[in-house]
């Protein structure tokens, strides 16, 4: 209750700003909305207030750094608006990705595992390759990316490095999400959905204006599913999930110059997940999900965003301040077998504070506007403080197979009848981390219009400081049967602090040629940067080795190949930043009087130190990020939106990526010429929708949608010995609307295609995560 009060209080304070300015008339004539408010283009053509789809279609979102129409920019982007988002059942960035070229967010594991791959870049751990902004608020932690998105007015992806304007971890692009604003839409929305696997969801939201100056919206959702996979070990649902979220938004527009926007969101999810199946490399088959220790994920996240937008007539000044809190806990049967080997718990608690100031010239729309120079200056700061407890519990089978067998094999060669024994059936390796990160940047972008040609140049100087304070320790009792009649307490410990600083120049250069109403052509060169970091998931392996070494030292026994002595822990756990140069040419074309929109792009990316998640060889328990020497990615994107006939629309999106290692030797094997793993070579999406209007008294609107998704081929490892061939998913829906009500029957993966969504290795075993089988359901909605 406190935050809404604070929000209103802040709005009240800022009402003291001047209500009229010297350029008030210019503001009235300006189409781009100021602040997170939304303007409506040519509002007179909007059919009716209750046509929310129509409102969302014409609404202009308040872009902080981009143009409202991405097709006017020298970049490859995809925008999907409210009606298409809802008809296609897009409620997460993962759903969104399946409708955009060269963006792949596989659905596996749990909501913590939001691996994003785009144009050959990406990794499943730590820093994302794509930035996520919801209502202009940046989400820095990938763990929070898979959030509930509802009442979304517009989602868009900008492919290619956006580092000049957005900084770190936008090496592959950014995803922007804009939710409905109470200043655009006033009304209430309700929906209830039920599907197979006892999946249901409820949503309710209301948008109101409190007078002319204040808009208030509040809403929430709740969902539950039994999941689609059973764990054969106990016969229970594996990927069950229950969760919900809420959003409160207060927009205050005291005058035509100032907009203050407060958004508070909260979300919680509790789930099983991790439907991982053991792969048999001999037969090439995967076994059913079968593991004994409970696995799951729980997450609570809160975020608050406060933005001010001031229209100074010829300039716009914006400030976006965000605070985010993420508290999550992942529990894993890390061997994913019926054996009692070892489990992992990873509990994080993170606070993030970000601040972005943008000062830009006002008229940035169009390159034929007559303005010679449009400019944008910005300064940003962030601070992120993460605390993590990540105990690994070694159980009976794990102690035997992973530690004692290895240790005693060596001892048996000298003393065949002697063993090292542990008194405990289970013991924990505790690991505690503190990882404060902060950064600051200044950036500038200028846009020069010379007739039909627009030159854009930008530069950002980005500074980042990252720390890892680690403390890993364990205690147990051991006995060497040859010499020790009793068990002896043994403690092993590893602690230290690692620090890294980065200063990165992030330039961008582009040229665009306007074809007038036909569209435009562009060429862009830009540099991308993805921050380095630390492999916290390697600590159980490091401490295991340390423990073996220390224990042998305690016994006075020495093997040549055991222990951490002689190398730096910092060198093992730290990985370097990733850099890329992106060269791109493309165009946006409008034909058939605007009924056909085509976007095309060709790109070449030269990436150094590409971050890869790898599984260390042997019976290791962790996974780590490493830097591949160099990769290159060549590809193309083609998007097509066409109105084939009255009420018949086709949306097509195709992406091709050929990403290969040009220099990567892990010390065992040279992977030059191999494809970068986890990157789909082809992504294809097609949506054909046929809509009928005013069908007598029965329905006002009836639409049929047929959707197709094709993905692949995907290689799963650096050696390219395992792969998922191209696979196809068929989706569809029938939607009927009458008055305030609508009913929709929908289905996903209607052909029940069997495919693998993910691959990994643990303790020397390979596992696959299957894609979800057929899903279907019905949704009843009401708008008041």
């Amino acid at each position, binding site marked *: 209750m406190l935050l809404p009060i604070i929000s209103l209080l802040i709005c009240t304070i800022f009402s003291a700003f001047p209500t009229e300015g010297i350029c008030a008339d210019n503001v009235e004539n300006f189409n781009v909305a100021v602040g997170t408010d939304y303007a409506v283009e040519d509002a007179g053509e909007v059919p009716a207030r209750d046509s929310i789809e129509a409102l969302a279609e014409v609404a202009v979102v308040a872009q902080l750094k981009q143009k409202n129409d991405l097709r006017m920019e020298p970049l490859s982007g995809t925008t999907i608006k409210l009606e298409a988002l809802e008809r296609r059942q897009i409620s997460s960035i993962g759903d969104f990705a399946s409708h955009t070229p060269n963006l792949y967010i596989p659905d596996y594991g749990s909501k913590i595992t939001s691996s994003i791959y785009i144009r050959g870049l990406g990794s499943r751990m730590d820093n994302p390759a794509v930035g996520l902004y919801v209502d202009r608020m940046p989400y820095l932690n990938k763990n929070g990316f898979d959030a509930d998105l509802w009442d979304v007015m517009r989602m868009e992806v900008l492919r290619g490095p956006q580092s000049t304007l957005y900084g770190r971890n936008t090496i592959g692009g950014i995803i922007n999400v804009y939710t409905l604003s109470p200043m655009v839409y006033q009304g209430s929305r309700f929906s209830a959905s039920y599907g197979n696997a006892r999946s249901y969801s409820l949503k309710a939201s209301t948008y109101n204006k409190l007078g002319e100056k204040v808009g208030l919206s509040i809403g929430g959702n709740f969902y539950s599913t039994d999941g689609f996979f059973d764990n054969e070990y106990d016969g229970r649902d594996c990927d069950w999930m229950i969760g919900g979220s809420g959003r409160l938004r207060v927009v205050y527009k005291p005058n035509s110059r100032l907009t203050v926007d407060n958004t508070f969101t909260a979300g919680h999810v509790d789930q099983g997940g991790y439907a991982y199946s053991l792969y048999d490399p001999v037969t090439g088959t995967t076994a059913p999900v079968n593991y004994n220790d409970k696995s799951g994920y729980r997450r609570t996240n809160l975020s608050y965003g406060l933005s001010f937008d001031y229209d100074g007539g010829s300039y716009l000044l914006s400030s976006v301040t965000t605070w985010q809190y993420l508290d999550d806990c992942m529990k894993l049967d890390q061997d994913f077998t019926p054996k009692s080997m070892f489990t992992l718990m990873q509990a994080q608690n993170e606070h993030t504070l970000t601040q972005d100031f943008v000062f830009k010239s006002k008229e940035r729309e169009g390159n034929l506007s007559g303005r010679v120079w449009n400019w944008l200056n910005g300064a940003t700061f962030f601070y992120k403080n993460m605390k993590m407890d990540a105990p690994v519990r070694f159980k009976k089978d794990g102690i035997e197979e992973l530690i004692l067998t290895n240790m005693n094999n060596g001892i048996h060669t000298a003393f065949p009848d002697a063993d090292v024994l542990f008194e405990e059936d289970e013991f924990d390796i505790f690991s505690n981390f503190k990882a404060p990160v902060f950064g600051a940047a200044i950036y500038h972008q200028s846009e020069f219009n010379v007739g039909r040609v627009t030159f854009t140049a930008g530069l950002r100087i980005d500074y980042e400081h990252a720390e890892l304070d680690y403390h890993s320790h364990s205690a147990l009792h051991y006995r060497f049967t040859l*010499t*020790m009649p009793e068990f002896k307490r043994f403690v092993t410990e590893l602690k230290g602090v690692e620090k890294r600083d980065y200063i990165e120049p992030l330039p961008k250069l582009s040229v665009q040629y306007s074809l007038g109403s036909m569209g435009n052509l562009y060429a862009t060169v830009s540099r991308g940067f993805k921050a380095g970091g630390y492999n916290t998931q390697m600590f159980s392996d490091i401490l295991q080795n340390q423990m073996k070494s220390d224990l042998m030292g305690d016994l*006075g*026994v020495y093997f040549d190949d055991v222990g951490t002595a002689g190398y730096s822990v910092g060198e093992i756990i730290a990985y370097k930043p990733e850099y890329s140069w992106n060269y791109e040419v493309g165009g946006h074309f409008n034909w058939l009087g605007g009924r056909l929109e085509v976007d095309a792009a060709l790109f070449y990316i030269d990436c150094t130190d590409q971050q890869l998640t790898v599984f260390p060889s042997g019976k290791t328990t962790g996974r780590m990020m490493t830097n591949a020497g160099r990769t290159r990615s060549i590809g193309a994107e083609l998007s097509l939106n066409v109105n084939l006939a009255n009420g018949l629309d086709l949306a097509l999106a195709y992406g091709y990526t050929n990403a290969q290692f040009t220099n990567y030797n892990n010390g065992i094997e040279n992977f030059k010429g191999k494809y970068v793993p986890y990157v789909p070579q082809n992504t294809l999406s097609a949506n054909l929708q046929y809509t009928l209007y005013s069908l007598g008294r029965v329905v006002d609107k009836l639409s049929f949608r047929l959707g197709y998704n094709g993905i692949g081929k995907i290689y799963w490892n650096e050696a390219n010995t395992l792969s998922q061939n191209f696979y196809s998913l068929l989706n569809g829906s029938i939607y009927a609307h009458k008055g305030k009500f609508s009913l929709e029957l929908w289905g996903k993966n209607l052909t029940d295609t069997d495919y693998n969504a993910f691959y990994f290795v643990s303790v020397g075993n390979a596992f696959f995560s299957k894609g979800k089988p057929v899903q279907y359901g019905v949704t009843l909605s009401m708008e008041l």
Partner: protein
Amino acid sequence: MKIKAFFRLLLCSAALILFAACTTGDEDEVPVIDPVSTTFMGDLVIDQNDGTTYTDKDAKISVNYDTENGTATMIFYQVKFAERMPIRLDMTVSGVSYTVNSSNITIAGNNIVPYAMGGPFVDYTITNLSGTVTGEDMTFTMKCGPYPVSFKGKAF
């Protein structure tokens, strides 16, 4: 004259001092090796009882003296007793008797159970330990279980 008398007196005094020095030196100035704990590095040769020997080169052994009870402790650091032995061991031999002589320290021991791998290592009981330590050098022989062992090393 006075000068000649002074020199005679000086010479007599010097002769007296020299005589006195020679008589006391015979009683007190016997050279003694201090029992200072020292680490030696050298070759540890183990007779494999099959007609061959194995030499652990650059083996490190420290001798620590306990002057209160007159025993020494020998610590073998990461030593290896056979080529086929896949591991190296720390081994402690306590209760070694020592005698300080005029030019060396002699060490000796018999039936001493060494301590290794967290406890007493009965199978490799030390017998017939005999050796000498000078300021810079140590040599000894012993039997470690059934295996004759010899060492010759220099202070490390």
